[in-house]
């Protein structure tokens, strides 16, 4: 008796589930970076968009890597529509035909955005910085620059760094005394790369590698690491919402931007554009920085923000003054080679 019921139920479910899914087609799937950042996006972008358009939006989280996008397209198993990518991923993916061209007319026109945000295959999403963060509650006098960050004698404890060569090699060179203006020039030479890896070798045992942006604030909070590389917004968000007392060191921060792209062959291209148009409106964008202090890309947003908030953004003059601008050109040419070397180095 029991057996017959189980089988019947199973058979019914097996036949019912797929037909429901197929009939509806695939819902618009938007992929972002998780943690506090995606929480903020959900609140100011995703939910309002679903309410405004009465459609369903599915969220996914990733932790970057052009290889992920390449695999998805090449395997024919891509189920993502809109993805937030980093600057060099935008260039590489555009070059390799992984993205649909951006239909600027459909999302408000090129002039509605700041110039840095405009690309033939993507539209800027946020401006942000890689900074050093530490917990004032545990480390009253913290580091002030990258050399301090690599100084395990003066600042004992583990360091959080992002797993990958990008930003890590730049930081190692700056810690080794290379001024920001010469970092990429040096990294372009084999000797410069060797120098960066040598600097990292000295600290390898003390590094905890994070893959997701949500990990650094969490590791700081739990004392897993003493100092960490982090995305500026997530540190501020932890201070604001979890009552933490994390400090941000802006000296020689690495400044860059992320963009939204539409994956090649997406069956939801029209709705993806509708989504991008929605999140490109200055009024909507202005609600993001109060949740998490990243710069946004539509013109006319900054006038709507308070001076205190503007001072927390990576674009504030005192923050961007000493910043190293991440070179997407350099990583376009060198990402694969250096990632291979980094992965081998790190997994040994």
């Amino acid at each position: 008796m029991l057996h017959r019921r189980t089988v019947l139920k199973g058979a019914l479910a097996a036949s019912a589930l797929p037909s429901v899914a197929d009939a509806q087609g695939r819902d618009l799937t938007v992929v972002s970076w998780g943690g506090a950042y995606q929480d903020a996006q959900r609140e100011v972008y995703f939910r309002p968009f679903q309410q405004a358009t009465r459609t369903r939006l599915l969220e996914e989280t990733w932790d970057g890597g052009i290889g992920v996008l390449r695999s998805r397209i090449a395997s024919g198993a891509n189920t993502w529509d809109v993805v937030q990518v980093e600057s060099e991923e935008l260039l590489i993916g555009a070059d390799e035909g992984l993205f649909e061209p951006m239909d600027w007319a459909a999302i408000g026109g090129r002039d509605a955005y700041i110039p840095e945000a405009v690309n033939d295959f993507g539209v800027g999403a946020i401006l942000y910085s890689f900074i050093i963060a530490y917990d004032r509650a545990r480390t009253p006098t913290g580091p002030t620059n990258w050399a301090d960050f690599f100084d395990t004698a003066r600042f004992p404890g583990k360091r959080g760094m992002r797993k990958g060569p990008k930003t890590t090699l730049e930081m190692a060179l700056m810690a080794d005394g290379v001024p920001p203006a010469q970092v990429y020039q040096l990294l372009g030479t084999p000797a410069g790369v060797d120098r960066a890896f040598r600097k990292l070798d000295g600290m390898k045992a003390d590094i905890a590698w994070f893959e997701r942006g949500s990990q650094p604030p969490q590791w700081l909070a739990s004392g897993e690491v003493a100092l960490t590389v982090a995305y500026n917004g997530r540190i501020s968000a932890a201070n604001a919402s979890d009552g933490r007392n994390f400090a941000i060191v802006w000296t020689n921060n690495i400044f860059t931007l992320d963009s939204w792209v539409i994956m090649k062959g997406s069956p939801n291209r029209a709705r993806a554009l509708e989504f991008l148009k929605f999140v490109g409106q200055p009024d909507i964008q202005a609600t993001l920085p109060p949740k998490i202090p990243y710069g946004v890309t539509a013109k006319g947003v900054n006038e709507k923000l308070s001076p205190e908030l503007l001072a927390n953004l990576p674009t504030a003059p005192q923050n961007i003054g000493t910043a190293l601008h991440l070179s997407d050109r350099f990583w376009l040419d060198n990402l694969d080679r250096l990632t291979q070397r980094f992965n081998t180095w790190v997994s040994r």
Partner: protein
Amino acid sequence: MTRGLLWVVAVLVALFLLAPIIAILPLSFSSGSFLFYPLPGLSLRWYADFFTSDFWLPALWNSLGIGVAAAGLATLLGTPAAFGLWRMKGAFRAIAMGVVLAPMVVPVIVVAVALLLAFGPIGLVATYTGLVIAHAALGVPFVVVTVLAALEGFDPVQLRAASACGAGPLRAFFRVCLPQIAPGVAAGAIFAFATSLDEVVIALFIAGPAQRTLPRQMFAGLNDSISLTTAAAAAVLVGLSVVLLLVVMWLQRRGQAAR
């Protein structure tokens, strides 16, 4: 003397097996957000979070739905196959048995990647169908093995007796054999369901955001930031597992009684 020592070690090992699971359950009832004891107070806030979030409850439903469908499919295919294997001899049986048991031993990562590449071009990635098929394949060996075990206790003479009385083979199977091995079939279905409920890797590789299962959502939660909602989800899964274990024990007792 030796026996006393063995007792001590055995009890310590039992504690080692149970302690981690027992340790996290009360945490899910904490009113604070820390992952250690003592608890600042008791509350159901993490369960409230579980049942109201955009992700956890749909994941639970996905897990249950996919599990039931996969178990149903595995049982539907596995029960007659077990019956066939039971009556079979020789090289073909050995080969068939090898194929049927293969999903038990092939590392699941190999299955996951192979299915990703096979299902991608035919549009089965990020569908319920794809995930149900994959989980059914993993559950099949459990059904076959359990049903075969139940058939061990079934006397084939009864089938001959039934046919002598004029019952066709199908009728004989349904009226004579199946009622006797039903507890075994049900246990097999539950094993298959539990296999699906436990499965993470294939869900990680071939499910889309709409098919997020509870284990996959837990994996993401653990990777992202461990909150006590994850502990509440763990508690829900533990509760499910205990129920399944009790049902299987009850079925096994019935199966033995039937003999």
